[in-house]
């Protein structure tokens, strides 16, 4: 939890930077552990409920541990009309999980996201921070292989 203290210090313990702190913690830990939120509440001197309010309001946050690799399927309009739904079907079938879930081996978490702003390459999936564009159902397996 040392990282959490460091992150809070980075933002000068200001309560207006709570969202940024949570983002950094999530980046570090993969999700927002309850202990980390408690530390933030203590050090910034805000009620824990305010942190939960932020963590549940904003899409970017997760309160449960996620997989080693996050598969983001873009569901922006361009991706939608170019077959994002088919990619989701295929991913759900291949990984045997639903949107928002994590595989049993902790390898992948599948999440639908709003437009990632790569509409020229639709349909797009983003794994960790790597973009894969112009995909068809057939490409899905090959793309996933790269991630251990």
């Amino acid at each position, binding site marked *: 939890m040392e990282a959490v203290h460091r992150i809070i210090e980075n933002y000068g313990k200001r309560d207006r930077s709570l969202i940024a702190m949570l983002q950094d913690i999530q980046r570090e830990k993969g999700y927002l552990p309850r202990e980390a939120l408690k530390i933030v509440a203590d050090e910034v001197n805000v009620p824990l409920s305010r942190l939960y309010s932020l963590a549940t309001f904003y899409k970017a946050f997760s309160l449960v541990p996620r997989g080693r690799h996050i598969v983001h399927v873009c569901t922006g309009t*361009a991706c939608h*009309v170019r077959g994002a739904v088919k990619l989701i079907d295929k991913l759900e079938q291949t990984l045997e999980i639903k949107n928002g879930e994590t595989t049993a081996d902790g390898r992948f978490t599948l999440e639908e996201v709003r*437009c990632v702003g790569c509409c*020229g390459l639709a349909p797009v999936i983003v794994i960790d921070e790597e973009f894969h564009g112009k995909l068809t159902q057939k490409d899905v397996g090959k793309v996933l292989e790269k991630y251990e």
Partner: protein
Amino acid sequence: MDRKNYRTHVLVCAGTGCVSNGSLNIKSALEEELKKHGLDGEVQVIVTGCQGFCERGPIAIVQPDDVFYQSLTLKDIPPLVEEHFLKGRPYKKCMYVPGKKEDAIPKMMDIDFFKHQMLVVLRNRGRMDPEKIDEYIAFDGYRGLAKALTSMTPDEIIEEISASGLRGRGGAGFPAAMKWRFAQKADSDVKYLICNADEGDPGAYMDRSVLEADPHAVLEGMTIGAKAIGAVKGFIYVRDEYPLAVDRIKKAIEQAKDYGLLGENILDTGFDFDVEVIRGGGAFVCGEETALMASIEGQPGRPRSRPPFPAERGLWGKPTNINNVETWANVPIIIHRGAEWYATLGTEKSKGTKVFSLVGKINNSGLVEVPMGIPLREIIYGIGGGIPGGKAFKAVQSGGPSGGCIPASLLDLPVDYEKLAEAGAIMGSGGLIVMDEETCMVDVALYFINFLVDESCGKCTPCRVGLVRMKEILERIVAGEGTESDIGSLEALAHTIKNSALCGLGNTAPNPVLTTLKYFKEEYEAHIRDHRCPAGVCKALITHRIDPEKCTGCTVCARNCPVDAISGERKQPHVIDIELCTQCGSCREACKFDAIIVE
């Protein structure tokens, strides 16, 4: 700054799209190959921001020859360097080819996609390294700021913006100068300024591109605005999903501070202005200005009712002015080249240019900048090259979830704020998503309502509950369980939500349903009365089968079927097993002989 004179420059696109296609490796390979031939002293490789033609990435342009290369792979680099730089003839394999039977086009300015554009906001795209302030300055960067700070009063700046006719590029098109004037007149010792880079509309990415390709233009615009209204501090609220944009704008801030163009005592004029980057939390509603301000303050991004407007009571209760990325990027060039010049572009009430993201079922998809008032047809066919696969154009969705679908009968519509609103859509941030005959308009309406149900903040009842009711009705219709009264209920709900929701998200949320009902009612009726999806999309209403007359037994469909529902011998007609088929349509997309029938 590297002042060595090079004979030729290779501009390699490093926008997010091209980077994801490996453009940075292409850059290294080019440098290595040039060095191998001893050309590294003559040819310089530069990485630039997004050049707009994302679909064809990775892209590189050779200047001054103006030769455009697309879809580059590492294998292409040795022959390309040999042909172009040693032998002096453009490398044909990576040139743009408009259609199967047409000739390759070497020069960028001869390609329809680029030829018909007019670059004002995107003036620096693809011609400079966005991470080098010197290059921005070399292209007249910060001249507008110098002019504003040393020879104009705040009133004169606002007057100039007013005379240019600049309207907000974020959605509603409110005159920028009027907003600035309100904030300027507000009585307070502390005022704030915000750049809204929470580009939430799915299918629109111009703001990301501007931040990635020309971050200094945004900073310069904001600083000019700050001088005009008397702001001490600015915030750029940018989506966390845009890591490259965040990175570039942060670098730009550091560089501008080093050069005395931002921070304390800017250009020795005694004017102080600082900018901070705030990363958004991934909530569409935060594009609404009051929600965005709540988010900057570290609160959940829920909108509040207006008035008071941000110009009176904004961030932390202080007068605040908000404009979006594209609006800010327009400001420096208006001040530098003058309002008179700017006002010659566009139409009577919509001045200047607009950047559109032309995406979806279109041949040339990417970012395009055109003068306001250009007919929709020219964007879609002139620049976009029409619909792929010879399919028929059906509609174009403009303005994101708050916008609407414009049908083929309105293709000659001049695109400006007023004309789009008359058609029931809005300009919005400039997403143009093209749909062809295989796009179901009821499915599209449901798509947007789903999006909005998800993104509704839940504060007001019409939006929180009303949208869910609309969603339930639409779900019934696409499942083939719609009733005759459903269309009437949808219309009634839509009008109620439009008139009673708290913020812009709710007020405009019914637009996708209203415009599809207006222009494509017969498609709703086909779902309800005939239990038929004319576009062949809604899974509950369609079955796929193979026409034995047309099937050549090429096996492509069987290989593309994700559930192995297709069987058949090679060179014999194939069959789909109805029990296994999920109606996903992959076979239809893959078939080259139109042998897949959807009923």
